[in-house]
Each structure stands twice: as C-alpha cells, then as structure tokens.
C-alpha cells in the first residue's frame, strides 16, 4: 500500500527528473522542448499543493482546502501577468 507521503515524494521526483531530462534534450534539439521541460519543472511544486488540497478536501478540512485553492489561483493569476 502506498502512503500519501510516498505518492507525493514520487510525484516530486518524477516532475523534477522529467523536467531536467526534457530541458536537457531541448538544449541540443529545440527551444520548444526546453520550454516544455522548464514548464514541467515550474508546475512540479504545484502538484504538491494540488495533492495537499485534495487531501484536505477528502478530510473535510475546508479552511485548508481553500488555502490550497488560493495558492493555485495565485499561480494562474501569475501566468497572466506577463510583461513584455
């Protein structure tokens, strides 16, 4: 049986390692690939927030669920704040 902690641990590892591998491939192959790799890396910590949010929702700890939702909302807002 896999615990929540082990699951989160694996998500972080897979996120970082695939992000690194794809960014490195992008260095030699194409900028688009590097772009995707960096994006995966940036999204990795948010996977952890997403899983924490799901955990709090399942346990009906709504204040903490809303905090997790707020953190994810800030990421979405951030992605619209591009400056040229």
């Amino acid at each position, binding site marked *: 049986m896999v615990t929540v*902690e*082990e699951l*989160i*641990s*694996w998500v*972080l*590892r897979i*996120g*970082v390692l695939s*992000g*690194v591998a794809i*960014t*490195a491939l*992008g*260095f030699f192959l194409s*900028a688009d690939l*590097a*772009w995707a*790799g*960096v*994006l995966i*890396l*940036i*999204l*990795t*910590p*948010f996977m*952890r*927030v997403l899983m*924490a949010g799901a*955990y*709090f929702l399942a346990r009906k*700890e709504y204040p*903490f669920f809303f*905090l*997790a939702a*707020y*953190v994810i909302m*800030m*990421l979405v*807002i*951030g*992605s*619209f*704040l*591009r*400056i*040229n």
Partner: protein
Amino acid sequence: MGGFSTDLYLMALLILLFGVFAGSLGAMLGLGGGVLMIIFLLLALDLPAHQAVALSLIAVIASSSMAGSVYIKDKMTNLRLAMVLEAFTVTGAVAGAYLAIGMPVWVIQALLGCVLFYTSITMFRERKVDSADSETMPREGAGGRGSVLDGSFYDEQSSATVSYGVKNLKLGSVTSFIAGAVSGMVGIGGGVIKVPVMNLVMKIPIKAAAATSNFMVGVTAAASAVIYFESGLVDLKLAAPTIMGIMIGAYIGTRLLAKSRSAVVRKVLAVVLSFFGAVLILKAGGILAW
C-alpha cells in the same frame, strides 16, 4: 544569446560547473543554492539582472523539489502550517516578481546586496542545530490549548516524538509575505528569511521548520518563476545547465552532509557573502563598475 555558438557552450559549461559547486555547498550548509547561483549569474557571467533572477528561481525549484521528496517521507513537514504561511508567501512572490520586472536594475542589485548581508549575519549567528535543539516542547497552541496547526514528528537522533505548538502566527505571516516578495525580486528561495523566524519566533523545532520552509520555497519560487517564464525572461538554453548543475550538486552535497558540517566553511562563506553584498550595493550606487 546569439544562436548556437562556442560562447553558448562555454557559458553553459561554466553554469553547470558552478551549479554543482553551489548545489553541494548549499545542501551542506542548508542554503537552497539560490543565493550562490544568483551572485554567479549576476556578477561572474554578467547576465541581465532579470534573466539572472529567472534562472536562479528555476534552480531553486529544482533543488527544493529534490530535497522535498526526501523531507516529505520523513513526515517532518507541517502541512497545515505550510498552507497558512504559503498563502502569504505566494502573494508576496507574485507581487514581488511583477514589480521587479518593471524595476530598474540598481534596485534589484541593492536589495540583493542587503539580502546577502542578512544571510551572512544569520550564518554567523546560527547555533549548532544537532540533538541539543530537539527539545520536547509542551503541546500547546497559540491560545494555550491544542491548535490545528500544532505538529509533531519522530526525531531519529533522539529516538523520540517531538510535539510542538506554533507561536506568533501573525508575525510569521508577515515575514512569509516579505520573504515571498524578496524571493520574487532577487531570485532566492527565501528559506534563509523564513527558517530563523519560524525557529526563533514561532518556536518550531529546527527540523520541522526546515522541512516546512522547503515546501513553501518550491511553491514560492514557482509562483514568481511563472511570471518571468511567461514574460520570456527564462533563457531556455541556459536553463538546462542551471538545473542539471544544481541537482548534481545537491545529490553530492546531501551525501557529504554527514561528514563535514564544518563551522569554518560556514564562516568563510559568510564572509564571502558579505563581500559580494558590499560589491552589489556599491554597484547599485554606481560607485563600482565591476
């Protein structure tokens, strides 16, 4: 970057090598590596300030996620406390990154200079954080009774379960907001601001403080990095050596950790950081060209 040139390969190699150095030293001394990375990118490679900050944030995400995958299994992260403080720190990070992109370079240099001085001071003052620190605290929350934010973890060094209450949540929240803003502006993780406050003011045992801060650092750096990323400020060629270097370094550093927690290395680095702090402030004031 002008296409695919020898310059690019040389720069990538330098970043990779320095990343290994910064990552391993960072892991050994409990710094995220962002502080060292940003100095190198800014002063040695002379990258444009916003690009240097963006790359440093990417490095911070990589190293904190890697460390986080180890911390979380040890169950030292206080997830509820992290969520509360994260709401403040992520708001600071988004605001900080958004403001920083429009700021003149000297402001970023001056701010980073101040952060380096601050880091240097905390490194000089830091006590030995071994078994002596894991005292068992009475289980009481902010109001003297049990709180949902209270935490506990099993400490292997003392073979005991350490329970603790969380104090001064307001001050901790304000600090988290400031740490987030600073992180978004100068490209560090901000653990160096959060961990001492969590430990000394909020009275959280150092191991739980470090693990909880690690969780927040990754999310904070990612929230500001996404703004730099969407604004096209992440150099996609230099991202690869930055991430790889810091990760290889962190891997080596965590394995060297047990052997050498040298106070001498810590003090030398503290002096080096205040030296670069001075350089950056002089540069910001236009006194030093570097």
